[in-house]
């Protein structure tokens, strides 16, 4: 079976006032129909830029240098011209953004913004598009859809707005849905509802989904696969259960152990990854995580790790210079000490 979306060695370089930023540095992944890939990473890890590039939205940035391949059903979007790409946007690949209030036009009614998405791809009359807008709102579980279609974005709650945003993305039954931090701007309870909604819609419509988030909990809830990004590269990739149970990369360990838990002792500082995300203008040499990695050895500053399969599990890949056996031992020790802490409290 051919993957719906395949990204091959994607690189994005953007000029800034301080120098050229290599925001995405050789990212590859595939997503099949009906599957969800969760891309996890800190802000500035390149996860948003890589998905905007897949949508062809970084082309507008002056001086952007984009190489690699983005294959949608086998067709390379990076090689497509602007008009071809426009036809793909919203129809082949659709996107949901983080903050629905700022991502919707404040001066247009919800229904009009939805109808516009419908009409952008295909000869649909105004009246039919308006009717479809209401249908779409009903599809994503917006109550009183007809009345809400006449409202302006600022008149809705955050959850309703995000549902409307999802409806807009689904207007043309896209093959791929990219959700960029779809729940970050929402309350925890609303967040859960939106994730369930996304899950349900994916089952119904069979889209390939890319979910971008910094929240491991969100990925754990809806993703089938996880890709962990650090400094413009994927450092670990695999099925969600494997990654959560047996993470191989020290950065992933940091992400997993820094999740707040209610059964941690009160007042105790949350474990955190030391240091700060590196500058992508002059990234660290060798393994990009080595300056922050407590397991790093001197030679890690010179050798750049490749994303390689974990011994015994070809579906799980990691880019780490530590010896696999040593990695395993260190993770077990880390996990056990965390568990012990929870038991004692």
């Amino acid at each position, binding site marked *: 079976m051919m993957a719906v979306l395949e990204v091959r060695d994607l690189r994005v370089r953007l000029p800034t006032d301080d120098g050229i930023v290599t925001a995405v540095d050789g990212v590859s992944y595939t997503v099949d129909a009906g599957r969800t890939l969760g891309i996890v990473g800190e802000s500035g890890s390149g996860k948003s830029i890589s998905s905007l590039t897949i949508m062809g939205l970084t082309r507008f940035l002056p001086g952007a240098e984009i190489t690699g391949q983005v294959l949608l059903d086998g067709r390379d979007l990076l090689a497509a011209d602007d008009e071809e790409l426009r036809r793909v946007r*919203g129809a082949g690949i659709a996107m949901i953004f983080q903050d629905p209030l*700022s991502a919707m036009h404040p001066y247009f009614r919800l229904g009009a913004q939805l109808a516009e998405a419908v009409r952008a791809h295909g000869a649909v009359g105004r009246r039919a598009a308006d009717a479809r807008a209401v249908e779409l709102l009903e599809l994503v579980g917006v109550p009183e859809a007809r009345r809400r279609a006449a409202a302006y974005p600022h008149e809705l709650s955050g959850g309703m707005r995000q549902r409307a945003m999802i409806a807009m993305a689904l207007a043309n039954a896209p093959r791929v849905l990219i959700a960029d931090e779809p729940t970050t701007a929402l309350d925890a309870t609303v967040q859960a509802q939106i994730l369930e909604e996304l899950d349900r819609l994916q089952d119904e419509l069979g889209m390939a989904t890319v979910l971008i988030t910094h929240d491991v909990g969100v990925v754990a809830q809806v993703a089938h696969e996880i890709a962990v990004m650090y400094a413009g590269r994927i450092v670990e990739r695999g099925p969600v259960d494997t990654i959560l149970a047996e993470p191989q990369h020290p950065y992933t360990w940091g992400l997993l152990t820094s999740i707040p838990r209610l059964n941690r002792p009160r007042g105790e500082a949350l474990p955190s990854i030391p240091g700060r995300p590196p500058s992508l203008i002059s990234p660290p040499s060798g393994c990009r995580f080595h300056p922050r990695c407590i397991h790093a050895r001197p030679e890690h500053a010179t050798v750049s790790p490749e994303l390689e399969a974990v011994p015994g599990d070809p579906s799980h890949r990691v880019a780490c210079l530590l010896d696999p056996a040593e990695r395993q031992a260190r993770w077990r020790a880390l996990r056990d000490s965390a568990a012990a802490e929870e038991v004692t409290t």
Partner: protein
Amino acid sequence: MAAFVLRRLLWTLVLLVIVTFVTFLVFVQMPSADPAVLRAGRNATPEIVAALRDQFGLDQPWYVQYGKYVQHLVLHQDLGYSYQNNVSVGSEIVARLPVTLSVAIGSVLIWLAVGIPIGIISAVRRGRMSDRLLMIGALAAISAPAYWLGLVALYLLSKDIGVLPIFEGAGSYPSGGQSLFTAPAQVAPALVLPCLVLAASFAAIYARFVRASLSEVLAEDYIRTARAKGLRERTVVLKHGMRSTAVPIITLLGLDLGILLGGAILVEIVFNIPGMGRLSYEAIQRGDIPTIQGAVLLGAALIILLNLVVDVAQAVLDPRLRKARA
């Protein structure tokens, strides 16, 4: 909305009273010439001057004079009579205003029609050669003073090349106080140059303003969404982008129409156009207080009214403001 407008109209009345008061104080307390001497004309005997002073009530304290002025204005809609030629200020304004409005409307149309498209092109092609050239041109247009531009344009186009008409005995504007409303065919060619001159710097300012404002809007998240929907770039810029830029443009326009009245003075003098600007200019030179009062009052009323129109337009354009203005 209706309550908002009504409230603002009541405020307008209060403001206009304050405006009359301040103008009155300025020109009565610090006169540029003795009005009675002015009215008496040359070779007047002291008796005539004294008689006129008594007739106009100029020997009475200022508050009595002001009271009488307001009384006439409110009860008889009477703005008084010019000290210069004893013509009713009201009828003088009625005759002059259409001429100035012709100049103003022509200028606004030109500056919007030139400034906005240039701003859009510059914003979309930001940082490229075409953007730089347009912005350098805009800077030149902003830097050229209206009276200088007017004289140069007059010399070049009317005298030298002869594209634009010159009227016998009147110069660049037909005599008889015609306006765009009464004799469009005759007046329109005469208005081309004055309007262009008056519009030049405004068009440039608007081009720069639209460029800055639209560039900012185009960086908004909702523009990214519009692109992500697969809309054509044209729709993204002209519909989604300009829809947001329209609000600040309308706001600026409301303010600038007031400034335009000031600009009209210069242009009307250079091009010999018998409008409100020239009337005010001559009245100030001659210390003709009733005419100055009338002109200032009219200007103030227009500016206040325009601001109200802007506020209503903003609420119409920005749904988020509607509740606040309700």
